[in-house]
């Protein structure tokens, strides 16, 4: 079985079918992109995978294990991390604390130990910090460690969100429009980082993206959606040339 599998995944809001009988599977070590016009259901699929929404029908498997009804806070522990389209950082905390929250799923200490700040807590904090520093180094975030998020520009926030997701040492990372709001240079950096994440850290990437040049540069396979339905799946060139995809974007 593939790494991440969605079987007949559907999500309905009243009469609106946001996601309609979608099937796809992501292989281990792949960069898989979901594209589609606005309202096609891309982010809904992400919210289904990170269990913020309950699917109306269908099943989700990760590593051969079903997690269709798992509670949302168990997802990070399973090894799935995500970023958000409209940055969801903890604005009134420092960058360092944001990244340390990313380590939460590896927390081993309990409240009583923490209130007394026993040696075990201190040791765990050192370990978390060490992992966080590795991510900071990878994404060149050294200048921002002690800055509050609320004082940082959009482009930097975007990278910090990626960093926070990486801090949880995921096996699969979901990137919701990683290049939105970034300039050309920042988008280039992002495309290198996405490849590095896969090649060096061995993390499987599932992303939603509108920037077609970025999509064709980094993706191994692409899934095109429209009105919640699957239009085509294949390599970036195959999907871009698919008549239904062209029709969805340009109007038939």
């Amino acid at each position: 079985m593939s790494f991440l599998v969605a079987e007949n995944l559907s999500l309905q809001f009243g009469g609106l079918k946001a996601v309609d009988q979608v099937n796809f599977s992501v292989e281990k070590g792949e960069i898989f992109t979901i594209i589609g016009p606005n309202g096609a259901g891309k982010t809904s699929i992400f919210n289904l995978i990170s269990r913020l929404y309950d699917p109306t029908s269908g099943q989700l498997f990760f590593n051969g294990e079903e997690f269709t009804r798992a509670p949302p806070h168990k997802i990070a522990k399973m090894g799935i991390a995500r970023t958000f389209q409209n940055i969801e950082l903890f604005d009134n905390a420092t960058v360092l604390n944001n990244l340390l929250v990313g380590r939460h799923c590896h927390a081993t200490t309990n409240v009583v130990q923490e209130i007394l700040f026993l040696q075990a807590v201190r040791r765990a904090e050192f370990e978390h910090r060490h992992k966080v520093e590795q991510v900071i180094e990878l994404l060149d975030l050294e200048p921002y460690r002690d800055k509050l998020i609320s004082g940082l520009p959009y482009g930097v926030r975007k990278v910090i969100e990626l960093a926070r997701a990486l801090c949880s040492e995921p096996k699969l990372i979901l990137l919701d429009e990683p290049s939105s709001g970034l300039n050309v240079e920042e988008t280039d950096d992002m495309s290198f980082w996405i490849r590095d994440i896969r090649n060096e850290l061995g993390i499987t990437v599932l992303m939603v993206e509108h920037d077609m040049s970025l999509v064709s540069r980094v993706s191994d396979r692409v899934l095109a959606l429209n009105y919640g339905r699957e239009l085509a799946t294949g390599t970036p060139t195959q999907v871009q040339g698919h008549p239904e995809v062209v029709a969805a974007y340009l109007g038939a």
Partner: protein
Amino acid sequence: MRFIFKTDYDQDIRIFKHSGYWWSYSVLLLLLAAAPFLLGNYLLSQMVFVFIYATVGVSLLILVGFTGQASLGHAAFLAIGAYTSAYCQQHGIPFVVYFPLAGVLTGIVGVLVGFPALRLQGIYLVIATISFGAIVEEILARWESVTNGNEGLKVRTLDLLGLPVPRDSAGFYFLCLALLIAVILATLNLLRSPTGRAFVAIRDSETAAKSMGIDVAAYKVRSFGISATITGLAGCLYAHKLSFISPEMFTLLLSIEFIIVIIIGGVFSLHGAVLGAIFIVMIDPLLTMLKDDLPGVIGNFASLFGADAPTANHVQDQAAKIASAPGLKGAIYGLIIVGFILFEPTGLYGRWLKIKLFFQTFPLYKAATFKRQKTYVKSERNR
């Protein structure tokens, strides 16, 4: 200016970040230790109230400031702590047992309140906690076999392992100070570990907190529990300080006072709880003093500006009438809160930081240093 060269992760973890902390807090501790021998009875008693209010303030900061869950029910938690202590004391249970018991019992009630509160946000949570406070007040008034109803309960002198600690003694002062310091240290420890960061994460974005593996419900309940426990402990000492407790002492007004403590002090730092407590405890005698003296001053001003004696007297009488109008204190409190929210949302501690930075960077201080952008869209729909 001080530049800290960081070579060790521990520099970001430890509570005393540099030598300046050691100096200033040692001096503060020395002053506090010397206070009972330097201050008069009245001021010492006010200091004890400052400590108790600050303890409640810290507990409220955990819940409101760091977890972002509003509460106007903390007077009820304080009451549960206070009544537990009074009841236990009457039944011959020693202080060393009923003091922690007051905390634990209040903590359990806090957790029970936390569960229904999970489904509520913002203003609805405020309403729910107000109702909780009203329910507790009603129970205290009606459950006469335990609480003696509206007649109230007398609390005898605190007995610490056979050693009597009267409510106006230096010993009681140190007991309250010790509780406050212990609570502050515990909270600081919590804030520099995963639980504290989870609280802050829930405050700033529940959606992201969930995706980072934080069990939002569990941590909200924990926050309620911890906050209530601390308030319960404070309630025990509060009961002994007052030596008499009755239901009308623990009304919504007291809960509002606690909220004022943290709004005026500043909701983003523990310093805020202490500064706010000093403010709220000291504003009362200040207002009373003004109420007594201000009409006379106004009358004098009137005659200074050429009013004849009867007019000046009339002005003075009118001023006295306004000053003793019922509800004036509440109105002034309200104005102070509104003023702080509008002009200094970071409270007294925020103001203090700005003043400090002004001197540190003189003459390069820019007011814009503290301006923050607040308007990146958050996905509310995922809530």
